[in-house]
């Protein structure tokens, strides 16, 4: 904010000098004074009046006007007089001048405002920068202190390090010293030992002499009889020839051992060479033709051609199976070269795969490693499963093939089969028996029914016969008695029986229904009779259960 400087108005006098000074000041230092001037709070109306009246009073009216005119004309305004000289005031020009002055005043005020704003901004920026500066200063202080602390620590650690090095050196020196002490003591002990040993040897010699001198007859071997040599040969004298022979034997033994070892080593060598050759071939086959990238072609071209030459040479030479230094070196060098190439190639593939994963390239030939691995895993699983299946099948096959050969197992198997069959048969038997029982029951029931039927039929026939008889008798007692008797008896018997059977069957089937037939006149009687007969027939039937065959036979006879 700006300074609100209250400038005490200088002496409120009508003295124009002060005012001139005042105004000249105003002109001179426009910007700075402007603020001062502009900041002047408009005093109260009273003061204002006094202020404004301080310039022009009734006494100096003319002078003030002329002064104003002069000022205005110098400022470029038209004169306020009507003419250049004269005392009449041109009101219009005065008003115009006033307006112009007002406009200028407004402009100045605006400019002042703008300047104030800028000033505010600048001061705030300044404050901000001062704050930043203060903070940075603090940080700088802190970091300086830190650096000092770290340096101190570094110094301490270095001194510690030096101490440790020193200790290590001391320890090493001590160890060396102790080793020297040990070695010196060892030499001393050896020397003493040797001295003691010499004394001991002297004693031994002495003792030996004494022992030999004594000619101890006891030192002898008593044996019943001498035993033959293990290999049956006779003992031989020791001569130079035997010595030579022994040497020969020894060298033969050594040579044979060396030869054996050499053979083994040769075989191993040959195998390893074969393996290396195979590896080389495989590595070459694994490496891509490298036609895609022309850059590398130029690099690997000569190398490849060299390798091809090498291959050719080595193949030729290995056919002769030399094992001299140069061939060996060539082989190992060529394998090393190719191995390096293969490594590079694999690394390139890895890079490619990683690029594919990151999504940059989309090469179709490059399968992502994960897919490849998944596939290989699947294939391996399949292979394992197939192998297991094959194994189990083989085992089963073997079992099947083996089983007939083995007597015990075949007997056992036969026994098992027999048992199975027996059990099955037993089951079937039980089934059969059950069925048989059922059949028997049914048959019995059927026969019972048949018996009943027969009895009922019989009863029915009898009834019919009787009824017919009665009818006939009732209709014509004298006439055709005997004839009717004979034929109806034969006829009736059967018809009676038929009727009875029918009725009995119908009776059997529907025991509660009344007989509704052509005979209506005497149904009750006949039914009664039939009922009675049927009951008797039923009782007969019950009794006749035991003789179904006979009854059936009789039925058969009747039907026939």
């Amino acid at each position, binding site marked *: 904010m700006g300074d609100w400087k209250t400038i005490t108005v200088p002496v409120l006098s009508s003295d124009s000098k002060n005012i001139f000074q005042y105004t000249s000041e105003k002109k001179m230092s426009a910007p700075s004074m402007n603020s001062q001037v502009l900041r002047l709070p408009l005093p109260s109306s009273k003061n204002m009046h006094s202020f404004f009246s301080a310039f022009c009073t009734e006494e100096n009216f003319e002078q003030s006007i002329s002064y104003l005119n002069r000022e205005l004309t110098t400022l470029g305004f038209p004169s306020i007089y009507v003419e250049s000289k004269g005392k009449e005031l041109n009101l219009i020009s005065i008003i115009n001048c006033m307006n112009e002055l007002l406009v200028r005043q407004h402009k100045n005020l605006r400019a002042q405002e703008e300047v104030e704003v800028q000033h505010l901004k600048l001061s705030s920026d300044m404050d901000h920068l001062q704050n930043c500066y203060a903070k940075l200063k603090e940080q700088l202080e802190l970091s300086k202190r830190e650096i000092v602390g770290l340096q101190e620590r570094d110094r301490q650690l270095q001194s510690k390090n030096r101490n440790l090095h020193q200790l290590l050196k001391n320890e090493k020196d001590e160890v060396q010293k102790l080793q020297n002490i040990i070695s010196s003591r060892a030499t001393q002990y050896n020397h003493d030992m040797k001295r003691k040993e010499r004394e001991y040897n002297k004693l*031994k010699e002495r003792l030996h002499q004494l022992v030999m001198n004594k000619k101890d007859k006891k030192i002898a071997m*008593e*044996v*019943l009889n001498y035993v033959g*040599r293990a290999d049956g040969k006779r003992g031989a004298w020791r001569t130079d020839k*035997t010595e030579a022979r022994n040497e020969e034997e020894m060298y033969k033994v050594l040579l044979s051992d060396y030869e054996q070892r050499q053979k083994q*080593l040769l075989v191993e060598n040959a195998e390893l060479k074969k393996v290396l050759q195979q590896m080389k071939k495989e590595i070459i086959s694994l490496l891509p033709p490298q036609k895609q990238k022309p850059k590398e072609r130029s690099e690997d071209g000569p190398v490849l051609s060299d390798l091809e030459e090498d291959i050719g040479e080595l193949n030729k030479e290995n056919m002769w199976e030399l094992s001299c230094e140069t061939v060996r070196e060539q082989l190992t060098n060529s394998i090393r070269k190719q191995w390096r190439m293969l490594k590079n190639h694999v690394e390139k593939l890895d890079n490619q795969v990683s690029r594919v994963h990151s999504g940059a390239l989309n090469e179709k030939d490059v399968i992502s490693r994960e897919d490849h691995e998944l596939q290989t895993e699947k294939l391996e699983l399949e292979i394992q499963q197939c192998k297991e299946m094959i194994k189990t099948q083989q085992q089963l096959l073997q079992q099947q093939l083996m089983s007939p050969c083995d007597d015990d197992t075949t007997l056992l198997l036969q026994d098992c089969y027999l048992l199975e069959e027996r059990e099955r048969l037993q089951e079937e038997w039980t089934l059969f028996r059950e069925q048989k029982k059922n059949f028997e029951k049914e048959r019995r029931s059927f026969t019972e029914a048949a018996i009943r039927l027969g009895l009922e039929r019989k009863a029915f026939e009898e009834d019919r016969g009787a009824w017919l008889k009665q009818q006939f008798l009732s209709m014509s007692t004298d006439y055709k008695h005997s004839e009717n008797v004979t034929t109806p008896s034969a006829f009736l018997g059967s018809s009676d029986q038929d009727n009875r059977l029918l009725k009995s069957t119908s009776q059997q089937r529907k025991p509660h229904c009344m007989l509704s037939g052509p005979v209506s006149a005497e149904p009750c009687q006949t039914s009664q009779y039939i009922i009675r007969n049927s009951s008797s027939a039923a009782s007969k039937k019950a009794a006749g259960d035991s003789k179904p065959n006979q009854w059936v036979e009789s039925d058969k006879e009747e039907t026939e």
Partner: protein
Amino acid sequence: MDFSELFKLSGLLGRFSPDGKCLASCVQYRLVVRDVNTLQILQLYTCLDQIQYIEWSSDSLFILCAMYKRGIVQVWSLEQPDWHCKIDEGSAGLVASCWSPDGRHILNTTEFHLRITVWSLCTKSVSYIKYPKACQQGIAFTRDGRYMAVAERRDCKDFISIFVCSDWQLLRHFDTETQDLFGIEWAPNGCVLAAWDTCLEYKILLYSLDGRLLSTYRAYEWSLGIKSIAWSPSSQFLAIGSYDEKVRILNHVTWKKITEFEHPATIANKRTIVYKEVEKSPSVATERLSFPPTRALASSLFSTQSKYDVSQVPVSLQYVKPVADRANPKMGIGMLAFSPDNCFLATKNDNIPNAVWIWDIQKLKLFVVLEQLCAIQSFQWDPRQPRLAVCTGNSRVYLWSPAGCVAVQVPVEGDFQIVSLSWRSSGDSMALLSKDNFCVCYLEREEV
């Protein structure tokens, strides 16, 4: 698996004959020869004094019995029980005695290692070898029995003499660059002789049959060095076990180290199988308890059964740090043995006394670790197949083969602490020896 009953034994002297038909055992001053299959006593010989050492001749016709106190060696014949032979060293004393490979000469080492006397059973001739070295393995015969290497020491320097066994002629005599030669051993192919220095220096020298130095190998300086060595049956590898708990394998082509086997206390490799022996609590069928309890029942109640469990890797084994100020400390690789098919190497680290480490030589990796409850006393490979028998001082014998492992309780009454075992040459039975007794164990084919 069948077990015979216990028989008396003294001095851990129970040996199968090389042809596998007989078994010789000593009880104080008696030598008992039994038939292997029936364990019937075939012969019984009485010696003049307590027997300290017996050895069969290579053709299984003779047995020598050495009595060091009296300085006498008696030789018995199996064909003719009446035949006798007595070798008296008299005032020269006797420290060691052994057969020559042809089975007709006896090499006696006199007291203070003054000389080695070669007594012949065929002729009246006697040979002397002077200045033999007083070390653990001073005499070595090639496998085919043609040559003998003897370690000698004259004027504070070590020498090796190679003799032809057929006529005892000196073939080669050369000095070795060792401080104090500790032992010599022929390779199975009979062409290379390994000679190694005392444990104060790690140095092993390889000499050809004709005395040329083929190679020297030193792994490190100053610390205690070689403790045990073993040749592979094909002579391809030489395994050197040292006091720093490692086994180094040299190959026969370049005589350089091809690999190192470490024996740490913690096994972390997932591919290693660790069999741990665990005790099964004895299950007592209460219905069958009777009063007074039978002897068998009593012994079975008190003897705990054990079986093998597969432990999950990582496994930490019991590590024993020996006292620092004693000589010959119980640390380092004390036992080494190759399997007969050259596929496995069994080792024992004396710092971890309860474990047997079995290495796969084809892959040069640790294959199996057997963790036992007690300290391993001895182990031996079956001469025919890759089957390892282990004994730990209790009455159980443990068998391992690539198919698995099994712990078998020997069904004997009383205490039977198996300290040593030896296989029959055909691989179908073995003798289990304890301090006072022994028993024979018969294995079926394809046992494990």
